[in-house]
């Protein structure tokens, strides 16, 4: 296939107009020294049928996609409603660029304005941006933001955050010369608040916690509020948006910036991306936020319209003095989240969260009946760490039964060998959970 839209005779006409006989004449300014003197070494071109055939083979190799999935750990197998997918396929949305020309982009702009509103409402914050790359990078950006605001160079982060968020934050911090101090978790997979408090000093801009944390646990975030108030530092909270259906919005325990992974909201697993990072904050920090922001305004006739605003923060205006270098964000994923939140609404989101909770609690309660598995902390939302006797063997047994039983915690925490992090979305059934219990629980 090629996607050239000229008839051959039209190419001739164009060459004639340019008074050249061959398109290579247009590359005369490329020095011979750097010209490639061979063809690129790539596979021969395929037509659509051949490409589909190749993907039929490739798709067959992604066997995990068909397995019953109990892995979470930052990416959740929630149900994506058909209506969300149908609307995302509208080409006016997905084939557009960033809405630079407001008059021709009201669709994207209005949807992002709705997105900002819903994220603000869900997190309880005053303002939100138009999304950043993903949960990990949204946390990293929030840390840079806090350090900008506080004009300080250090943050303290609980080790109960997603390890890849911490790693990403460290990379970003390395660039900006910020110190990221990680405060260890305790045997209940909770933040050791007393220890953490000792790590905060005069250079510290912010404390970072997450709800629920990486181990699924709902920590006592009021402790975080107390510490940040006492130390006059900012509180950054990374939250699971589905959990917020039942959990207090972070605003109510003093969060200054709330970030998180928006994938659970209507976005497929996609082997880790594209996802979207959400970010909301107190109103006073609006101008310090990274990323696009859509604002309401009026058109010439006084009607409500939307436009990219506060661009004076951004790289194309402020260049090296911008709040961030971010340009493309994850607009289509944010649109999916917007449609998802609108479609589910108040009751729908609660019903999804409730199903997750009920499935998780069922697992926890049933687990007690089995000798081979032990739950460490059951104050969780949709994910729980479980100690499994003979884990390796049972893990393989689960795979043989086409079940992905969870994430082995030693992937990130060598000291947690033998433990499994198991997630339960609304898609899981009692029958599936029973199967899992049987495999994990019985030696």
């Amino acid at each position, binding site marked *: 296939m090629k996607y050239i839209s000229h008839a051959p005779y039209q190419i001739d006409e164009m060459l004639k107009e340019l008074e050249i006989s061959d398109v290579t004449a247009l590359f005369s300014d490329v020095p011979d020294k750097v010209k490639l003197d061979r063809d690129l070494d790539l596979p021969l071109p395929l037509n659509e049928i051949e490409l589909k055939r190749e993907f039929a083979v490739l798709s067959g190799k992604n066997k995990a996609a068909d397995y019953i999935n109990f892995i979470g750990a930052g990416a959740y197998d929630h149900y994506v409603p058909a209506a969300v997918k149908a609307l995302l396929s509208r*080409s006016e949305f997905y*084939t*557009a660029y960033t809405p630079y020309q407001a008059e021709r982009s009201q669709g994207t702009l209005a949807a992002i304005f709705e997105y900002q509103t819903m994220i603000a409402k869900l997190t309880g914050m005053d303002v939100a941006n138009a999304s950043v790359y993903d949960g990990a990078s949204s946390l990293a950006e929030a840390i840079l933001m806090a350090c900008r605001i506080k004009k300080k160079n250090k943050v303290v982060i609980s080790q109960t955050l997603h390890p890849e968020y911490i790693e990403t934050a460290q990379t970003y911090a390395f660039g900006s010369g910020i110190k990221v101090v990680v405060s260890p978790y305790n045997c209940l997979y909770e933040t050791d608040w007393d220890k953490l408090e000792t790590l905060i000093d005069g250079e510290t801009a912010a404390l970072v916690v997450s709800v629920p944390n990486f181990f699924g646990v709902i920590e006592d975030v009021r402790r975080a509020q107390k510490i940040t108030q006492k130390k006059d530092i900012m509180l950054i909270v990374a939250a699971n948006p589905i959990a917020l259906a039942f959990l207090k919005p972070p605003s109510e325990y003093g969060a200054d910036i709330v970030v998180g992974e928006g994938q659970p909201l209507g976005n497929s697993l996609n082997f880790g991306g594209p996802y979207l990072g959400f970010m909301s904050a107190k109103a006073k920090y609006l101008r310090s936020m990274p990323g696009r922001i859509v604002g309401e305004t009026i058109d010439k006739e006084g009607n409500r319209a939307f436009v990219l605003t506060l661009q004076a923060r951004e790289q194309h205006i402020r260049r090296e003095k911008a709040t961030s270098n971010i340009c493309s964000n994850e607009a289509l994923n944010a649109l999916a989240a917007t449609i998802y939140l609108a479609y589910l609404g108040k009751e729908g989101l609660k019903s999804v969260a409730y199903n997750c909770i009920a499935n998780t609690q069922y697992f926890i309660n049933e687990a007690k009946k089995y000798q081979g598995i032990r739950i460490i902390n059951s104050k969780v939302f949709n994910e729980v760490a479980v100690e499994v006797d003979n884990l390796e063997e049972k893990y393989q047994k689960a795979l043989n039964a086409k079940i992905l039983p969870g994430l082995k915690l030693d992937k990130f925490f060598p000291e947690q060998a033998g433990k499994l992090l198991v997630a339960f979305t609304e898609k899981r059934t009692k029958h599936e959970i029973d199967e899992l219990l049987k495999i994990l629980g019985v030696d």
Partner: protein
Amino acid sequence: SDVPLIFEKSRKGKEGFVLTAPDVPQVEISQVFDEDLIRCDLDLPEVSEVDVIRHYTKLSTMNFGVDSGFYPLGSCTMKYNPKINEEIALMPEFTQLHPYAPQELCQGTLEVMYHMQNFLAEITGMDYFTLQPAAGAHGELTGMFIIKKYFEHSGQKRTKIIVPDSAHGTNPASASQAGFEVISLKSGSDGLVDPKALREVVDENVAALMLTNPNTLGLFEKNIHEIAEILHEKGALLYYDGANLNAVMGIARPADMGFDVVHLNLHKTFSTPHGGGGPGSGPVGVKAFLKDFLPKPIVAKKDDKYVLDYNIPYSIGKIHGFYGNVGVVLKAYGYIKCLGASGLKEASEVAVLNANYLLKKIKDMFIVPEGNVCKHEFVVSCKNWKENFGVRALDVAKRLLDYGFHPPTIYFPLIVEEALMIEPTETESKDTLDAFCDALQNIYREAQENPDILKSAPFSMPVKRVDEVKAARDVKVIYKE
């Protein structure tokens, strides 16, 4: 009339997608969570499925994509996105794959990622690629981190990045975000980097020069070899902003030009749709000596299996959760597989042909700052329109909307006054280019005869010209009843 918002369609008690109770026993929320942590109220819209479908269908009609028409947004390479790539990326075996599933059960996606790393390496001439960055600017940042780490590792303290004044704003912003000091380099009178001027600023404190080639004026930096030598002589590196790779695929490779680090934009050059502002994908390629600094993991092949390789000794770490925008990578893979070497080269050739044809046809109406040849895009100035008719580039852009076209990029690059930056891409037909010329000619006539038409434009859009000043002054970024 007002652009609609979903909140205004909300009616208390209406339901869209609400699940029934699960088949496991009921639980009391208050017995799971501390009372103090339980939310009182959740303020989200209450609408039905048909409300949702109609609202967002309506919003879509207030938008414009490549499928709607010509979108010559300079520097954004808004080429047509083949539908087959959307179809393959939406296959459930790819969308339903969890990133932490056992790798041996994810071999399809890993195989695609592995090949993509190699394809991009071949296309750019670089040695190794990471697919982790989620966008072009994210790629720049990654590149800057790699350069920083490289110098740190080799014990050199280099604090400066040189950026030409014609560069994208992301370049200085990325350099700055990585902790570098940004040195702006004035372009020569020919719109190119002046090797002499460059030589004067390059010293042992310079970590790298960031450059796009062809540059943002659509001109090929013909002294690129000398530029590379100047930097490398002083131990500095050369960074390639891949925004403009669409001009030179199969013709000239960044590695062969002397670049040490490149980022690409899959959503530009490799035809993945941009989604109204993302997702993009900004893979970064490096020469072999920088391999050990790449973010982790990359995909490797071991004993006929594809594996995630976390063993990167001096890795900058992670710059994204998981492995980046894999769904976007799938689409670009499909694109490269369908075009092959011959197709990619033809794409670049026709992109350049289209730009030159369009430039030739419209240049008499504008001031053309940098001569009469270009690569895949070009910049003209409306300075003469402003002086003669009192209309600005913005007015021309708004009026183009009425003619059914998306306008070019305006006011960029900053070094050209009243700039229109036009990139037709190779997927546009001569008929479309001719129609665009006709529209510009009509608008030129209107500017002479009745400039108010331009200043009041657009007329046929869902909204009239929006008040950007008010938006920034009376800031309102969330909906309140």
